[in-house]
C-alpha cells in the first residue's frame, strides 16, 4: 500500500475544476517529482492534498485512509507536511521560533527533532536567534523545510523549492532534499528545474491541463523522447 495515493482527483477553486483526474502514488522511500508547464495544476495538486481547496471527485488516500478535504491541523499530526512556494517563513519570527511553529501540533518534547534539523542545516543553528526575514533566499528555504520537518512528517511536500535560487543553491537544496529522504521522509515536490529534479526522482509525474500525461521513474521520463520534446525543452 502506498503512503500517499491520489486516484482520479478532481478539484478546483470554486469555478471550473482545475484538476481533471490526477493520479499519484508515493512510497515513504520515494522522491516524487511533479513537472509540467505553467498553469498545469501542479501547485493546485499539492494544495488539494493538503486540504487547501475543495476536492470534488476521486480519492486521496494517506496510509490507506481517505484524507480529501481534511484541514492541515488534522493532516500535520498524521504525518503530512507542506512547504508552500512563496511566503513560506514567518519573517518576523526568529529561525528557532519558525521551527517551533512547525512543531505546534506536537505535545511531546520536540527538542531532539530541532537538533536533528540543525544538524542537517548547520547554518540555521548559527542564525537561530535571527529573524527569518533577514536571511538569504536559500537560507529561508532551509528554514521553511526545517519548519515542515519539525512535525516529524512521513511525507514532505515542497512547491518549487528551488524557485528564485542561484544555481549553486539549487544544487544545495536538492542535495538536502535527498538527504532528508535518506532519513526516512517521503518527498513529493513540484519543480521547474525539471531535468535536474527528475534526475534523482524515483517517481516522476508530467502534468498538463490538470491531468497526468506521463508517469515513470525520473530517468525514464528524461529518456522518453516525447517527454523531452514537449516538456523538457528538447
Amino acid at each position, binding site marked *: 500500500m502506498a503512503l500517499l495515493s491520489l486516484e482520479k482527483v478532481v478539484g478546483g477553486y470554486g469555478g471550473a475544476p482545475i484538476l481533471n483526474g490526477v493520479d499519484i502514488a508515493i512510497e515513504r522511500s520515494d522522491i516524487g517529482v511533479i513537472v509540467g508547464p505553467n498553469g498545469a495544476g501542479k501547485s493546485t495538486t499539492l494544495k488539494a492534498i*493538503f486540504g*487547501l481547496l475543495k476536492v470534488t471527485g476521486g480519492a486521496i488516500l494517506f496510509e490507506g485512509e481517505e484524507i480529501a478535504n481534511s*484541514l*492541515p*491541523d488534522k*493532516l*500535520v*499530526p498524521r504525518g503530512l507536511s*507542506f512547504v*508552500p512556494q512563496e*511566503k*513560506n*517563513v*514567518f*519573517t*518576523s*519570527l526568529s529561525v528557532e*521560533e519558525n521551527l*517551533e*511553529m*512547525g512543531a*505546534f*501540533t506536537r505535545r511531546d518534547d520536540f527538542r531532539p527533532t530541532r537538533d536533528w534539523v540543525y544538524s542537517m542545516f548547520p547554518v540555521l543553528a548559527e542564525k537561530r536567534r535571527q*529573524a527569518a526575514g533577514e536571511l538569504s533566499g536559500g537560507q529561508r528555504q532551509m528554514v521553511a523545510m526545517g*519548519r515542515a520537518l519539525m*512535525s516529524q512528517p512521513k511525507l514532505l511536500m515542497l512547491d518549487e523549492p528551488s524557485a528564485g535560487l542561484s544555481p549553486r543553491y539549487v544544487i544545495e537544496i536538492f542535495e538536502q532534499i535527498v538527504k532528508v529522504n535518506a532519513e526516512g521522509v517521503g518527498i513529493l515536490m513540484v519543480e521547474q528545474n525539471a531535468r535536474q529534479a527528475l534526475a534523482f526522482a524515483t517517481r516522476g509525474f508530467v502534468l498538463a491541463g490538470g491531468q497526468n500525461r506521463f508517469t515513470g521513474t525520473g530517468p525514464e521520463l528524461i529518456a522518453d523522447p516525447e517527454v523531452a520534446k514537449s516538456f523538457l525543452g528538447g
Partner: protein
Amino acid sequence: MNELIFFFNNVIVSGAVLGCVYALGAVGITLIFGILRFAHFAHGDMMTMGGFITFVLAGLVTAAGIAFPLPTGFVVLPVAMVLAALIALGLDKAFYAPLRLRGAKPVTLLIASIGVTLMIQGLIRLIFGTGTYTFFAEEPKRLIRIDTEWLGATRPIAMTEPHVLLFIVTLVSVVALHYFLTRSRLGKAMRAMADNPDLAQVSGINTQLVVRVTWLIAGSLACAAGTMLALDVTLKPDLAFNIVLPIFAAAIVGGLGHAYGAIAGGFLLGFAETLSVFNWTVLLRPISGIFPEWVSLPGNLSIVPTEYKLSVAFVILVITLLVRPTGIFKGASS
C-alpha cells in the same frame, strides 16, 4: 522649582495616566487587527463595559460589608477582567465569527463592530441610565503626596491612589504580555498568525484557538483600561467612546498588528496631549527676565486649547498616515 513640580504633575503624571489607558486599549485593537484583520471599532465600548462590570462587582462586595485597604474597584478587577474576557469571546461568537465564516470583508466586520458599539452603549444606558457614577461614593480617593523640600520646592508631587494603581496594572500587563508573546507556545503562534496567516494554517497551528485567546486578552485588557480610567475620573456610558480616536491613533502610529508599537504609541499620544494643552507661560514666567522688555508673556501659552485636545491625536494620526503609513515603529518585530 515649584513651576517644575507643577509641570511634572500636569504633564508627566497626567501624560503617563493617559498613556497607560491608551496603551491598554490600543494593545487590544492591534492584536485583534493582527489576527482578524479588521478595525475593532467597539473596543472603546468594551472598555466602558469593563468599567461597569467592575462597578457592579464592587457594589456587591461593598453591600456585603467587605472593605479593603485598597479601592474596592481595584480589588475586584481580576474577577471583572475574567468576566469581560468571556463576554468578548461571546461577542465574537455571536457577531464576528459568523461573518468570518462567510468570508466577510474587513469593512463588513468594521461595520458590524459599529453595530456592537451601539448595542453595548444602548444596553449600558438601558441598565444604568445616562448618569455618571463614582467608585468613591463610600470610600475615600486617597491622594499621594511626595514632599519636595529636598528639591527646594514647596509644592508636592501629587497623584491619586488610582493613578499609582494604574501604573502598576499597566506595568504588570505589559510585562505579562511580553512574556506571553515571546515565551509561550500560544503567544508565539499568535505572532506567527499575525505575520502570515496562511503559513500558520499550513503549519497546523490551531487558528481558532489563537482567535479565542486574542479575544480573551483584548477583552481583559480593555476591562482593565476602562476600570482604571473610571477610577481616575467617573464612570459613564460614553466613558471610553470619547477616547476611541486617540486609542486607534495609538495603534496606527505604533503600526497596526505590533503590540509593542501600540504601547509606545499609547504613551506618545498621552504625552503629546498633555504637552500640547500645558500652559507654557507657567514655566517661562520665572525666567521672564531673560526676554527683552518688549516681550510680554501672554496669560495662556498652550499649543492647543484644552477643549481641542482631541485634535492632537487627529493631527498625529494624519501626519503618521502621510509620512509613515505602516507606523513609526516599523522594524521592531511584532
